[in-house]
Structures are given as structure tokens and as C-alpha cells.
């Protein structure tokens, strides 16, 4: 999917999909009208997902896969759902959904899995994400194992020092450093076999590279390459690739 589509996409809910996707909500709303205020808030938050995803009893795959049993599952692992290449990669990297991963993903889906078809800008408000994650968790096995208060105690989706994010990269230095990237990643933005890294928002690029550096992201080549890049160098690369053509 194009970066542009993702950038401009708002969580508009296509009407027909909404109509189809309401089975789960009906179950919830009618059977156990949420006595728990946290669940009620979660259900509200889930409205922006329900255009594409179903959850609860009888949930099926729609535009996106159903979200029952999400916690502890390897990303992209429903055998009967056709995933984007991004999620096939996530699966082969054994990315597992837990509260931390979901929080990073929901904040900016493309930052964690570049190239996902999920046309969703992300949820910037940390407490809203926590509410939604708590709600999703209720539909996974044995949610009681997770301390009830956890969703509201989420850290932000990255532990990056704000000073690192604030670094202004030198695009000329980035251009030189980019030689190490363009042996595999095409400068034209082509993405066959290896994802595109051009025209990312600089912050997403920096977060992703630091996620490789600290080995949150799993790809061994990228862990190795990012592992020896300093903060200034990552900022320089983000600045260079962010403004290519």
C-alpha cells in the first residue's frame, strides 16, 4: 500500500463493513451490557476498528482478521486469512502480540510493520490505546492472568529519549550513509522482496531504527546494521530518506 494512502487515511468506517461487523457488538451490547466501565470505554474505542475487524462470539475475518485470542498469538498467523507481505514478515520474525507490541502497533501501524494494508493512522492518545488494549485482552484466553490495572500502566510505545527524537539529522551525511542501505533497499522506493524505506516520517524512521538497535524488531541484518549506527547517524538517515524525491 502506498505511504500516501496511509498518511491520508483516517479511520473512516466504510458503511457496508460496519453493517457486517456489528455481530460482535450486538452480542456485547445485548447479552452483557458492559457493567464494567472499562469495558464500556473499550467498546467505544473499538468502534474505529470494527469497520474491518470483528471480535467476540461468532467473530469472523472481514477486511481484517478477527481479533479473538489475539494476546500471545504470533502476528500474521491465521492460516485462513490472506496477510500483507508485511505481516508475513512479522510472522516469520515471530512477532508476538502482547500489550507492549499492540501499543507500539496501535500508535503507528506502519512504524512496526511497514507496508501493512491496515489503512489506519494510529491512535496518538496513550490512554485511549490502553483502554482499547484492555478491551482486546478481554477476548483472549485467560485474561485474568494479566493484572487488571495493567492497561492503564502502559509505558509509551517506545523508550526513546526525547532528545534522540529531537535530533536534527544532516541529510548530506545521511546521503553518504545511505550507501549501506541501498545495496538492498531501492532508492527508487521499489519494495519487491525488501521493504521501501523512502519518504517515511522522520520520527517513524528513527523509532524503527532504534527498535532494531535495541533488538525489539527481530530482523538480524537490520539489527546488525542499526546496531552500530549512532543517534546522529540514524537521524541523518531519517532526514535523507525522508526527503528523497
Amino acid at each position, binding site marked *: 500500500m502506498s505511504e500516501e494512502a496511509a498518511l491520508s487515511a483516517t479511520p473512516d468506517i466504510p458503511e457496508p463493513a460496519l453493517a457486517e461487523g456489528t455481530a460482535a457488538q450486538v452480542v456485547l451490547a445485548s447479552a452483557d451490557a458492559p457493567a464494567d466501565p472499562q469495558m464500556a470505554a473499550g467498546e467505544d474505542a473499538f468502534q474505529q476498528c470494527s469497520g474491518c475487524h470483528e471480535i467476540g462470539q461468532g467473530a469472523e475475518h472481514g477486511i481484517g482478521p478477527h481479533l479473538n485470542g489475539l494476546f500471545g498469538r504470533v502476528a500474521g498467523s491465521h492460516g485462513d486469512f490472506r496477510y500483507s507481505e508485511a505481516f508475513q514478515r512479522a510472522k*516469520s520474525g515471530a512477532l508476538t502480540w502482547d500489550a507492549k507490541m499492540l501499543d507500539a502497533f496501535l500508535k503507528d501501524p506502519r512504524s512496526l510493520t511497514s507496508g501493512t494494508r491496515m489503512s489506519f493512522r494510529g491512535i496518538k492518545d496513550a490512554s485511549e490505546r490502553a483502554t482499547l488494549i484492555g478491551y482486546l485482552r478481554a477476548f483472549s484466553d485467560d485474561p485474568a492472568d494479566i493484572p487488571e490495572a495493567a492497561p492503564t500502566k502502559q509505558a509509551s510505545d517506545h523508550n526513546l529519549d526525547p532528545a534522540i527524537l529531537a535530533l536534527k539529522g544532516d541529510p548530506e551525511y545521511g546521503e553518504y*550513509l545511505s550507501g*549501506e542501505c541501498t545495496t538492498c*533497499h531501492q532508492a527508487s522506493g521499489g519494495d519487491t522482496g*525488501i521493504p521501501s524505506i523512502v519518504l517515511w516520517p522522520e520520527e517513524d524512521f528513527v523509532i524503527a531504527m532504534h527498535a532494531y538497535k535495541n533488538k525489539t524488531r527481530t530482523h538480524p*541484518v537490520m539489527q*546488525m546494521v542499526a*546496531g*552500530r549506527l549512532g543517534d546522529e547517524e540514524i537521524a541523518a538517515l531519517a532526514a535523507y530518506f525522508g526527503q528523497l524525491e
Partner: protein
Amino acid sequence: MTLNRRGFIGSAAAVAGALAAPMVMAQGKPRVVVVGGGAGGATAARYIAKDSKGEVDVTLIEPTRSYYTCFFSNLYIGGFKDMNDLGHTYGGLAANGVNVVHDWAVGVDRDAKTVGLAGGGSVAYDKLVLSPGIDFVDGSVEGWDLSAQNAMPHAYKAGSQSELLRAQLESMPQGGTYAMVAPPNPYRCPPGPYERVSMVAHYLKVNNPTAKILVADPKPKFSKQALFEEGWNNHYSGMIDWIGDDFGGGNVSVDPGAMTVSIDGEVTKVDVCNVIPGMKAGRIAELAGVTDGNWAPVNAADMSTKADADIYVLGDASQQGDMPKSGFSANSQAKVCANAVRGALTGSKVFPAKFSNTCWSLIETNDGVKVGATYEATEEKIAKVDGFISQTGESADVRKATYEESEGWYTGITSDMFG
């Protein structure tokens, strides 16, 4: 001329400096000549031309009009790629402002700073980048020389040799024997011979399942050995007999007329014999006088030769330290060199050297593995910093993703080389 100039420098450095600057101006733009249009040379030519934005005159000397990459040529032998998939032309470089000359470089006059061409004439340079790849060491395998390369192909320079080997493989009688004489260290593409064994086995498994593969190897161990042996066991059980140095694999001679291989005194009649001899730097490096033994020693910071500060050697031909001889390495070295050469000629900013390499190998359909490392420049060599290798027992999904990644890399690096 050299003597006169030395005289100047010795007596009055300031005068020599004043003399040098107008020389360059009188001749117009600074001139870079690159010999060899592969992963090292094409990349260096493209980056110097592209980044100098017309400030540097770049000439690439490459004899072939269609260049066939050695990387992925094993996949052609296995039937996974067409020869056309491996062919590239130089129109993209010409469009980037590189003056492409299709000729052989046959000599370097270091005093006059010119490169002689087989077609006659010469090209002048201020900086010369040699990226000639490999040639074979005479007498490396007893009984084999270049005149035997039709009977016993090396297929270690891609193109007609790869096609010949594939044709011989197709003509093997049922239950026949394919022999390989593997090369001694150091050589181009360390996992290459073993990926080739895998690709040959893939072909035979489908078309000639009772055939055997016999490998005589002068080395006691080889690159990605555990991964290859696991794969051979899983996919081609009983087909491949690898004889390492411990069992006489280095005591080899061949008879191209009789089509026999002698391994530690035991003579075997074979149907195909793929001889990959010992290697050395492409001949132009030797002719330029920048080699020491088989290879050209270089400074890690910029790939300039120890012998001549105005001549750089990239890729397989260089002796640089820890990097394997690979297309990826040559491409990586070329970008460091391009930055340094441009800086020396135009005063543009020179950034510290950083190198990296990854080698992917295909063992069987969708069973890809990889090994890679990062490197830095130290005083004495290019030194390894960090590395990784695929693990034995990885899932089919991981191996498939690795193979798909290698295809993405092929597209990436060839775009990076040829524009």
C-alpha cells in the same frame, strides 16, 4: 617526468604545489578512470559521477556490453533463473554521466598516469580505480589450464561458462557422476561452490535422481558448512560425497582428455568436471604493479593501494582484511572509495569508512540461508565488527523469507550498480 617532479618537491614544496594546481585546471575537470564494470567498478563509477554532479570526469572501461552477474549464476544452473535475468547493460551509467568505453585495459603507465587500451590509444587519469575481479592461478589444479575450460568448465565468471556447465549437466547420462574441484582460500564468494553443489543436486534430483556428486576440496571446512550439510542431508540424502582436505581432497589432479579425476591417488571417471581453480586478482592489477603475491594490498580507510596512492583496488582483487570476496563487499567498498576519491579531487566532505556484507545462498526451492557482518577501517585492515548467520533447524517460513529477501537484494544491488 617523475624525476623532474621529485626534484621540484624536494627543493621547493610551495612551488610544486603552485605547479600542481594549474595542471589540473589546464586539463579541465579532474579525471577518474574505472577499470571493470562489476559490483565494485560500476558502483564506484556511478557514485562518483552522480555525487560530483558533473565536477568529475568519469570513464568506465569494461570489455563486455552485457554484463552477467556472478551472483545468482548458481541459480541459473539450478534452473531458478534465466540467463537474461542476470544480464545488465551500461545505458543507465551513461545516462548518469559516465563515459563508458567497451574495451580491454591492457596496461597502466603510472608515471604518465594513463591506461592503455587493447583497441589502441590510452585514457589519462588523476585517480584510477581498478575493479577487475579474479583470474585463475596457473597450475593450481594439476592437469587443468584455461585451454581445458571447455572440457572442464570453471563457470566462476558468469556467462558462457555458466551456460556450458548447465548444458553439460543436462547431457549427463542417468546415474552419472558430476565432480567439482573446489578452490583453496581465499577465493570469490566463499559459499559459492557449495550453493552450486546444492543447485546441481536440485537439478539432478528431478532429472537424474541416481546421479552422484563428488566434491574434492583442498579445505578442511567451508563457509556455512553446517547449514549446507543439514540441507544436503534433508533434500539430497546420499547424493553428495564431499571429500575435504582431511581425506585427501587437496591431493587432486584431472585429465581433461580422459575425463578423469584423481583424488588422493584414486582415479574416477566422471561425466562432468567443474574445476574451480585457485584465484588471484584480475590481471590488470598485476600489470599496474599494485599486487603483492596474488592480490592487491589496500588501505582500509579508502581502498587506495599500498603501492600507489592514486590507484584504488576494489572487490575480489583487493587484499583488505576480513571482508569476504563478494559482490556485496565490492559494492560496499566502492561507496567508501567513491566518497574518498571525490573528496580528494573536489574537496567534498569525506566521511569515515563503514563496510558491510551479506551473502545469501539457496540450498533447495525456498530454502535460503544467509551470513553477514559489518566492518570498520583500522590502521592495518578492514576489521570485522559484528556478524550473524542463519541457524540450523530454522522453520520453512524463515527460510522462504530469506530466499525472498535475497531476490529483493538482487534487485537492490543491481539498481545500485547500474542505475
